């Protein structure tokens, strides 16, 4: 068989120069993605990145793998379609906090609870960057935005607890200022069989003057190195997740990064295959048996 050349992270980059502002956290995110893919030895032709609209959603354009750049908020369902059609592909969603938790927030719960084997990377800058500074669902209270001149009066969404309660089987947080941690977490997320979600704190120096690299520099704490070992314990994961936003309200609070939760469960595709095996598709099948059997089947 032909020997495949080992690919370096740079080999996963397209020839397009990113259009992001100097100092944008998203530069780090694509470095982490390319590092993770090269270390996992997944070839670009077997990867599909799907993004919505936003500065962050430009990420796929700067990567060499296949991609789809679709409507604002619709990256997850599009990625699901790709995965259903072609289960052998590694399917990544690369999008922003606005894309994933505002306009597209209705798709997360269903992808998570069905345990569809895709990896969602949320580049969370707590702001709408592309539309030039409006508050996002993850913005802290009081944050200035062009439509909220007196500061946000909304409570922020907690992306970690959100995804945990909807049944995601891999939930982690990382930080764009820590390349090693970021690529390590992304690697584990991609390797996880099932739905994986990584919230990546990725500062926007242009518009978010509060949640900056400087702010996060000494704020993060690696939960896995500090006692959180039982990562298949949902209760513990939720307790930790509830502390995620504490730093918005208390100066001494830290920002937890690391894997909150990871559990192997049958994926959507596994369950479909199991049903297919059980019923052995046949032209003579009377679909009524599903209706009858569902009444007694353990769920």
């Amino acid at each position, binding site marked *: 068989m032909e020997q495949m050349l080992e690919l370096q992270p740079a080999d996963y980059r*397209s020839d*397009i*120069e990113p*259009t992001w502002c100097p100092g944008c956290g998203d530069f780090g995110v694509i470095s982490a993605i390319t590092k993770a893919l090269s270390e996992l030895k997944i070839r670009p032709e077997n990867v*599909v990145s*799907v993004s919505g609209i936003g500065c962050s959603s*430009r990420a*796929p*354009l700067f990567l060499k793998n*296949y*991609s*789809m*750049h*679709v*409507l604002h*908020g*619709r990256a*997850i*369902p*599009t*990625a*699901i*379609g*790709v*995965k*259903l*059609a*072609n289960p052998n*592909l590694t399917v990544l969603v690369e999008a922003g906090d606005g894309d994933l938790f505002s306009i597209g927030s*209705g*798709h997360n*719960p*269903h992808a998570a609870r069905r345990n569809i084997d895709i990896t969602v990377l949320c580049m969370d800058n707590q702001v709408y960057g592309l539309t030039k500074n409006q508050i996002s669902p993850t913005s802290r209270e009081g944050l200035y935005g062009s439509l909220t001149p007196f500061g946000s009066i909304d409570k922020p969404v907690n992306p970690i607890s959100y995804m945990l309660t909807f049944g995601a089987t891999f939930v982690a947080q990382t930080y764009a200022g820590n390349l090693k941690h970021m690529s390590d977490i992304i690697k584990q997320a991609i390797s996880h069989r099932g739905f994986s979600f990584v919230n990546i704190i990725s500062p926007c120096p242009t518009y978010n003057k509060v949640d900056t690299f400087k702010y996060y520099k000494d704020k993060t704490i690696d939960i896995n190195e500090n006692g959180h070992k039982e990562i298949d314990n949902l209760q513990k994961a939720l307790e930790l997740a509830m502390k995620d936003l504490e730093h918005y309200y208390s100066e001494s609070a830290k920002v937890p990064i690391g894997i909150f939760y990871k559990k192997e469960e049958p994926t959507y595709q596994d369950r*479909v295959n199991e049903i297919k095996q059980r*019923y052995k*598709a*046949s*032209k*003579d*099948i009377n*679909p009524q048996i*599903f209706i009858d059997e569902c009444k007694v089947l353990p769920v």
Partner: protein
Amino acid sequence: MPEQKVVETDYLLLEAPRERKFITGSQAMAEAVKRANVDIAIAYPITPQSETMHLVGDLWAQGYLKDYYRAEEEYGAMSAIAGAVRGGARAFTATSGPGLLRGLEAIASWPGHRIPAVLGVLTRVVNAPLSIQPDNVEISYLMNCGMVVLHAENQQDVFDFTLASFAISEMVDVYLPIAVCTEGFFVTHAKGYVNMTPEDMKLPPRDPYKAPVPPTDCEIPPARIQRDAPVQKSNFMSYLIHQVWQQEVWSSNMRAMKYIYKYLNGPIEVINPDAEVFVAASGCAAAQAREAVRYAQMEGLNVGLLKIKSIVPFPSKEVRETLKNAKAIIVPEHNIVGWLAKEIKANIPNSDNVIGRPRVYGGMTLPVELIMDEIYAALGIKKDKTVLV
């Protein structure tokens, strides 16, 4: 797995023996899907579409489809269709009324993203007062997306249009989504005779490598416009790229016409080409128009039928030619806006001759008497009351 043999597209659509069955429009759509070698169906339920997608779900259970996925709602369903088709699958979905309008967000971008999918549109009221009744105003929203839009008169059309659409949509010189529209309930839940190709024959599988565009998104204009600074920062470049891309989409749309001729016997059907007065209609209204023309001819009146099967691409030349000597053109419709009347007016020189009546909406039936009234009026025949027996 049920044994089905792959046969040539031309053989299946044009030559294969046909068997006559008495079935509903929903069944006719599902029977076409069964013979189309579909990989995946994705949908979200809505009346009156639900029955069709339920029957397609049964096809999955019977092994005719590889996958069947129920999305979280129509934004999700239509986006997943785009993903699945770009992922290499042949995909089918159907929706109705409010589901179509919700899905339109993604559907509007399918043609530009070059997504050859087949979409069943089983019409339903979208305007308030809300209702589940048949009304086809939603088709007007579809007409400007760039996709091919066919309008089926009856169960037979539903079968033929759906099956042929899978073949036409994937032609390399077309490569666009196709909507097969028909009236909810009137066609979907009523039975009619359908001549169907054998159950054990299916279309060849999709070959996703036979495509007019490379599959890497950032190499093609939908993403390219946003990808590099010179393009993105120069509105002029962006306009130009968008312009040539959309021109290509609409040219591809027009190229579907030759396949509509080949597989669907042309975009129009004409009865009595030398008629003085024409009733021009599409979809279910064409069935009533057909009846009206039959009555009129029984009464010795010189009335003809122009049935329009393809709404987009619109058969401008054919419509102009058919109507060139018509004194009056009556356009009965199942919607309040009269989109078909407008389209016909826009395509013929003597547009004053178009009578955009009768129109029924909100699910009302279209009695033949209403069309006859317009025929009498157009011919100057005075009647107290039109009662047909």
